[in-house]
């Protein structure tokens, strides 16, 4: 609607309205390796389309909050997912190809403090860092209604696991799935 008015009424009439846009600084991140070699090796296995967002997220959290995050789960193969599916007591409803982890599009993170993870503390830590994850385009499992999964972040580009399975069948390699 605004663009149409500018077109019909001339730029000068609306230039004040657009002044605020100049003030918006878009931070595209620098996609540098993180502080943690374990995390870097797990990022290497993610889908190329989300690698930079994940690196920027972890670096941003470290820079702005002083919190050192580690990826504790990243890419999981179909075979590994099937092993989880067969485990008892039951821990998943998802077989190979039914979790976003199977396409390198999901991560679970936790804060590393003195070399260890205090899971009690993660309850509050993960809620604090979540807005930064969302800023870098990741959806946060802590906002889910059926089960609140705070360590979980994912970026699926609007694709369902069924879409992703079909794409994987065509492209054979999850890192080559077009997103």
């Amino acid at each position: 609607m605004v663009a149409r008015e500018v077109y019909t009424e001339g730029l000068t009439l609306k230039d004040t309205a657009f002044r605020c846009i100049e003030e918006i600084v878009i931070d595209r991140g620098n996609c540098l390796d993180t502080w943690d070699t374990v995390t870097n090796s797990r990022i290497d296995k993610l889908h190329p389309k989300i690698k930079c967002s994940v690196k920027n997220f972890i670096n941003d959290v470290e820079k702005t909050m002083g919190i050192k995050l580690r990826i504790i789960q990243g890419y999981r193969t179909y075979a590994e997912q099937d092993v989880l599916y067969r485990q008892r007591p039951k821990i998943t409803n998802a077989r190979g190809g039914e979790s976003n982890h199977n396409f390198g599009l999901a991560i679970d993170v936790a804060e590393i403090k003195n070399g260890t993870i205090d899971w009690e503390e993660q309850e509050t830590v993960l809620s604090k860092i979540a807005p930064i994850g969302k800023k870098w385009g990741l959806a946060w499992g802590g906002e889910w209604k059926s089960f609140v999964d705070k360590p979980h972040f994912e970026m699926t580009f609007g694709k369902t696991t069924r879409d992703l399975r079909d794409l994987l069948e065509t492209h054979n390699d999850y890192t080559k799935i077009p997103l």
Partner: protein
Amino acid sequence: MDKIKSSVLLIGLVVLFSCKYKERLQDKDPMVKKDSLFLIKDTVIFGESTQGTEVKLFKKINNNDSIIKVETFGEMGNSNHTFIFNEKLLNVVHITNYYQEPIYVNSTPKIRKKEKESLTASNKDKFTDLLYEYKSLFIHTEHKKNKVLLSQKWFGSYSFTMNEESDDWRDVHDISITINKDSINYLAKGYQLYESYRLYAIESNDTLKLTFKKDLNNANNWALKKTKNFGTITFDNKNYNWVCPYIDINFNDGKNSTYILKKE
């Protein structure tokens, strides 16, 4: 004496085997009676959980109540909802188990914390929303048989312009609700504004009660964190009047107003 002993043993074995056989039959046949419940349908969905959600619809045989059982698995735990409902939601039990650490291959998750929640006045809206979502998984097939949830008189587009008289054109927002047999969509457009949500409604006489269902644009609007209540539309034989807490918070500085909708 030995004969009596062996007879007792034989009877015991027969009873044991017949029980086992019965159990096995129950496992195989989904329609077999289980605690006076009939399993009507079940499905697994992969949406808002990393490890999938299994949803089962049961019917109680001694009355008309239905039960939906939902088992969701995540990386850090699991959650079980049991909804008992008839026309309305009657009761809910929600149990959440939190693991000590996330799952990984060959791990045996230990439960760190367990939480139990039941239906109260304060969580009724939240659970009613959830029940609707799960119920819609099974109602979907009924849609195919041309069953609609709302009466046809509500179908159409409703709109109004927020701050229409404002001197600053950037405050003017076009807000609309489109209702058809499959969905109810809310749309707000304006300067640096684009909100697109799926809503759902409960109809009662000449009133529609609207609630947020899904953000179609993943915009993470701040006002949604304050309320998901999209209020009520009432028809008074002349106007469609919309009382909407979400609009009040989002665009009206929290002041309560009634918005007059134009129907097309």
